[in-house]
């Protein structure tokens, strides 16, 4: 087993890993940029090393500096978390060459999964369903036209080298194909340095369903069921859950999609934790999209329902242990939901909201878990991701989990900066969300139809009284001014004030 592990990340995931290390009696080393001296992951680790200035490229992405810190502290392993260096095959390779264990899959598996077209090819070889489309990037418009006709419109143009919606175009009819292809190529070129695009069948109202796999370095691989991550905004996941509501109505889906995921992962010789992303249509047909060769942000929902600690097992597997769990040992219990709490303003175009957290209270009690990277008084830096915390809950049923999430969100207080927390209150009340009628466009539709809840009259009075109480305490020399002249608009109670 490891003696000391360096955590090459920041924020909530660094803390998640530090906690696991502590639970396994392994010393933890945090790394930090100049902007992060007071960050929570630095406060929580056993040791901490400054690795560079605020920009990620000079700190959390500076592989050689991180390897140096690993040697300097005598660490024998590196956990990369997600993002940053986690899917950087050459960093994983450099670790191997330095004799430091990279806690994750082999660099060859990372490399193979890094290209979407290569991953699709692998899935085809494994006999797993993929979205009908061209296997390779297509340069020639004529070939694209033939392929699109074969696939059947509507089709989707996608960039081979990247994600996040960049270089993506929806094509309804053949005459739209040529201009769309031109646009997509130039956007992809700008975003990823490669203009390679490919064609895919467009699935209407698709659901994003992914499968967690876990395997040891001795060839044994199992899956831990699916997560549904259809609640997204600009291709960023916002709410995730397990089981997928689609599995609740079509229970056979779990085994089928799990088997497909295992076939692909086996084909890649994959080990450690990984996630295979699929698109599913509303009938339960599913198509492999891509593999994330690392721990996923939303791993807690799988931990809730299976009782398997993914980070513990990542570490044990990386230390060479055999995974004793067989597929038949995995049992799913209840429902779990995760909400990602971002520092962004849902009332102001989701603009980021870094700054000082004036008040901070986490929810607690039964069935609630918070994985946070912040604390009261912390100044959320402008340099990094806006994810502040992940709030996940578990319930005996999906309905209970939704109610519990509502309760937990209402307890969660993050003040001083703006967060998207109130969105979750409204989402948990939404009849379509409650009915599990999810698809990747759900959140955009929801944002259009949701209305801010009406202000409760009594709550407004309470607000005014508290503010006056505070002002009165502050400026008690202002005592008993004369009554004001009655210039106030007294339109009486209006409908919005219940």
């Amino acid at each position, binding site marked *: 087993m490891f003696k000391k592990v360096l955590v090459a990340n920041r924020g909530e995931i660094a803390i998640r890993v530090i906690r696991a290390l502590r639970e396994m009696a392994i010393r933890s080393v945090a790394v930090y940029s100049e902007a992060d001296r007071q960050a929570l992951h630095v406060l929580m680790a056993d040791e901490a090393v400054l690795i560079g200035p605020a920009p990620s490229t000079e700190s959390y992405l500076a592989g050689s500096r991180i390897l140096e810190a690993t040697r300097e502290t005598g660490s024998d392993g590196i956990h990369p978390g997600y993002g940053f260096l986690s899917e950087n095959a050459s960093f994983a390779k450099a670790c191997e060459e330095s004799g430091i264990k990279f806690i994750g899959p082999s660099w060859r598996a990372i490399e193979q999964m890094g290209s979407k077209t290569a991953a699709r090819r692998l899935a085809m070889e494994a006999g797993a369903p993929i979205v009908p489309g061209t296997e390779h990037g297509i340069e020639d418009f004529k070939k694209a036209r033939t392929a699109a006709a074969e696939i059947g419109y509507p089709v989707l143009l996608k960039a081979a080298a990247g994600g996040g919606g960049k270089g993506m175009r929806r094509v309804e009819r053949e005459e739209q194909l040529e201009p769309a292809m031109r646009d997509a190529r130039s956007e992809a070129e700008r975003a990823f340095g490669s203009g390679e695009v490919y064609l895919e069948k467009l699935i209407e109202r698709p659901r994003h369903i992914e499968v967690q796999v876990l395997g040891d370095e001795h060839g044994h691989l199992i899956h831990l069921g699916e997560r549904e991550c259809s609640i997204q905004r600009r291709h960023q996941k916002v709410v995730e859950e397990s089981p997928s509501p689609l599995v609740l109505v079509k229970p056979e889906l779990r085994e089928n999609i799990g088997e497909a995921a295992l076939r692909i992962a086996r084909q890649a010789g994959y080990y450690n934790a990984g996630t295979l992303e699929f698109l599913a249509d509303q009938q339960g047909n599913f198509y492999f999209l891509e593999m994330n060769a690392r721990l996923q942000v939303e791993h807690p929902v799988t931990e809730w329902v299976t009782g398997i600690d993914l980070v513990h097992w990542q570490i044990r597997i990386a230390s060479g242990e055999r995974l004793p769990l067989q597929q038949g040992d995995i049992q799913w219990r209840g429902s779990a939901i995760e909400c990602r709490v971002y520092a962004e303003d849902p009332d102001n175009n989701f603009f980021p909201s870094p700054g000082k957290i004036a008040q901070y209270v986490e929810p607690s009690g039964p069935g609630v878990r918070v994985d946070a990277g912040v604390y009261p008084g912390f100044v959320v830096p402008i340099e990094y991701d806006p994810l502040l915390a992940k709030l996940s809950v578990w319930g005996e049923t999906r309905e209970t989990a939704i109610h519990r999430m509502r309760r937990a969100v209402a307890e969660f207080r993050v003040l001083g900066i703006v967060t998207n927390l109130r969105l979750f209150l409204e989402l948990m009340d939404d009849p379509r969300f409650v009915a599990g009628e999810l698809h990747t466009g759900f959140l955009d539709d929801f944002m259009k139809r949701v209305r801010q809840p009406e202000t409760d009259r009594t709550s407004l009075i309470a607000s005014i009284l508290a503010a006056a*109480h505070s002002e009165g305490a502050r400026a008690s020399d202002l005592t008993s001014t004369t009554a004001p002249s009655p210039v106030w608009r*007294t339109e009486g109670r209006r409908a919005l004030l219940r």
Partner: protein
Amino acid sequence: MTFRVEIDGQEYSLDVERNGSHSEYRLLGLINTSGTASLAEVMPGVFSVLLENRNFTVHLVPNGDNVEVWTNGQRHMISIADTRDRSRKNKNLGPSGPMEVRAQMPGRVIKLLVQPGEAVEAGQGLIVVEAMKMQNEMKAPKRGSISKIRAVEGATVAAGEPLVVVE
């Protein structure tokens, strides 16, 4: 004690008589009401308010001249003053005069797209601010010329900070 309260743009007059932890209040404005409340500051900036038996936890966060008030997950902006300084109000600069372009979010100025004195069209990009990997291009609110640039490339700015003036 009498207060002049502005909440979410609505003005009220509030009379409060404190009597230990209990307060008698009278509110005049869009809502006209009076009653008894129990108030306690349980943490700095956090108030427990009982109206009859109904229970509210109210969080106050100073925000410039105003106070952000959070109750039941909803945010209100409150300003409180006595009658004498009613004059202090944000004057809206009309579209005919000079207009300030302010930062819509805290962040770092990563690019200035215009020069002082340059003529600009309404909607033209003026300046790019970045925070948390998101870029926000601030646009000219009207046709005119750049009379002042307060922002410096590479500097961090607060939300609401004036960046450029278009005249």
